[in-house]
């Protein structure tokens, strides 16, 4: 007869066999594929094992609430990440089999060190991959603008860290103006990676506008940083054309995002401080340049002033020495001229003396000659004159004789004519004329010969042969 078992009995036997086979707890390595907490605080998980991407084993597991209350915080503080799916865990569990619910692992304990190691390994692999692809250093090699003033912020609006960041920027001590724009994204959990990548893509449209990207998030001890150890996100950030500054609020080891970011800072406040400091450095440089230019300009002007003064002094000196030199030359020339003039004068003087001497001797010779000639001429003249005088003397004797005869004859003739004329003269004498009845009219003792010499009222004298009368003119020209 075939042996028959009820399902319950079968399951009972399986349970007994399992209890025999796994009398104590076992340590199991598995990956959490699902995780649920119910209202009473129990935790239900699905554990899997994968070969590449294929699931080769699967089992349900539970952590009862009293255990879970202790295990969860222990795990999270030790690993720095949430106790959730997609993590590899090493747990101590009993193998349970319930006839109605089947196989299940009842987790009693957990070894977070395994998960930490696994995470480190994963990180190492990601880093390795990024390095091999040559993108690991790319964002760090970007140059942060000299003034990081326009910041694209990736954060969640409600995060305290975001508010701190904005407050810090807006209330900077120098009154610098910052321009920010929030590109919202989930900052933890499964949605974080795609939403951050989406935010980066949005910023990429304005990559000419922004100076830098800030990825910020408020801190917290229980923060799950797993999403920041993601290859996809790291790959995107490393090749982003703007420098990325992180401030994702954790004190532990850097995440991969921190490693590949241009600058890694601990908190959003520190990121704000970093940008403010960048602008401050530029501002200080301006102020320094300003004072430097004032100083240099003043120096340069002073130098020029001094140079001018020095030149003035030099010119003065040069002019003086030039004048002195020329004056020396002039006086030397003057002296030479004086000497030359003296010598010339002396020469000319002696020439003149010579000439004078020559002239005097020539003159005395000439004078002697002239005198001799004169003497000669005088002698000739004397002789000629003597001859002439002698001739004339004879001629005069002859003339004297001639004259005596002529004058005797002339006198005789004239005497006869004189006797003839004296009778005429006697008749014409004025007295005889007056006696004959003629009168002579005088005015002021002058003879009047014309009526025109007289006018009315003139006194006239009339001379008669025997006297004179005075009369006055009464009428004129009858």
């Amino acid at each position, binding site marked *: 007869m075939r042996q028959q078992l009820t399902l319950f009995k079968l399951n009972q036997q399986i349970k007994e066999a399992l209890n025999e086979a796994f009398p104590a707890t076992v340590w199991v390595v598995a990956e959490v594929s699902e995780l649920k907490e119910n209202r009473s605080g129990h935790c239900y998980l699905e554990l899997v094992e994968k070969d590449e991407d294929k699931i080769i084993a699967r089992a349900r597991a539970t952590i009862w609430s009293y255990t879970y209350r202790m295990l969860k915080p222990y795990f999270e503080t030790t690993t720095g990440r949430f106790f959730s799916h997609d993590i590899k865990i090493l747990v101590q569990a009993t193998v349970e089999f319930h006839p109605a619910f089947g196989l299940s692992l009842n987790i009693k304990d957990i070894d977070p060190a395994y998960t930490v190691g696994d995470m480190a390994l994963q990180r190492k692999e990601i880093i390795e991959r990024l390095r091999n692809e040559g993108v690991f250093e790319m964002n760090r090699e970007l140059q942060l*603008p*000299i*003034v990081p*003033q*326009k910041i694209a912020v990736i954060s969640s609006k409600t995060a305290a860290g975001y508010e701190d960041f904005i407050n810090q920027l807006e209330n900077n001590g*120098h*009154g*610098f*103006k910052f*321009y920010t*724009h929030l590109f919202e994204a989930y900052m933890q959990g499964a949605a974080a990676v795609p939403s951050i990548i989406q935010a980066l893509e949005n910023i990429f449209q*304005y990559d000419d*506008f922004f100076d830098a990207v800030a990825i910020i998030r408020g801190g917290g001890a229980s923060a799950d940083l797993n999403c920041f150890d993601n290859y996809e996100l790291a790959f995107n950030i490393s090749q982003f054309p703007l420098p990325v500054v992180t401030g994702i609020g954790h004190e532990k080891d850097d995440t991969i995002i921190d490693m590949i970011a241009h600058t890694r800072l601990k908190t959003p406040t520190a990121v704000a401080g970093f940008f403010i400091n960048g*602008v401050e450095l*530029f*501002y200080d*440089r*301006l102020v320094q*340049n*300003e004072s*430097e*230019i004032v100083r*240099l*300009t003043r120096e*340069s*002007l002073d*130098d*020029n002033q001094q140079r001018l003064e020095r030149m003035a002094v030099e010119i003065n000196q040069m002019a003086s020495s030039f004048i002195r030199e020329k004056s020396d030359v002039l006086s030397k020339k003057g002296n030479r001229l004086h000497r030359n003039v003296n010598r010339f004068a002396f020469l000319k003087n002696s020439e003149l003396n010579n000439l004078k001497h020559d002239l005097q001797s020539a003159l005395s010779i000439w004078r002697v000659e002239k005198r001799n000639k004169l003497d000669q001429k005088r002698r000739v003249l004397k002789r000629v004159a003597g001859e002439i005088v002698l001739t004339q003397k004879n001629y005069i004797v002859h003339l004297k004789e001639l004259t005596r005869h002529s004058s005797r004859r002339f006198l005789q003739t004239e005497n006869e004519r004189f006797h003839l004329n004296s009778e005429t003269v006697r008749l014409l004498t004025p007295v005889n004329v007056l006696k004959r009845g003629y009168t002579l009219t005088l005015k002021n003792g002058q003879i009047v010969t014309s009526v025109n010499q007289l006018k009315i009222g003139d006194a006239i004298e009339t001379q008669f042969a025997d006297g004179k009368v005075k009369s006055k003119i009464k009428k004129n020209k009858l």
Partner: protein
Amino acid sequence: MATKKISYNEAVSEIEDILEKIENEELDVDELAEKVKRVSVLLKLCKDKLTKTNDQVEQILKEMEE
């Protein structure tokens, strides 16, 4: 030169270029006056840009909201 659009980099390198020239005494007094004036314009420009709100930039930010 379009002074309005000058970048921080351009401004500061121009300023420092002028500084160097003054330091090396490459400028005569007339040039000096001109360059110092230029520097003060650039300094003012940078300081204004650092501290005063630029409406054009604000406008671009506003457009991002939409």
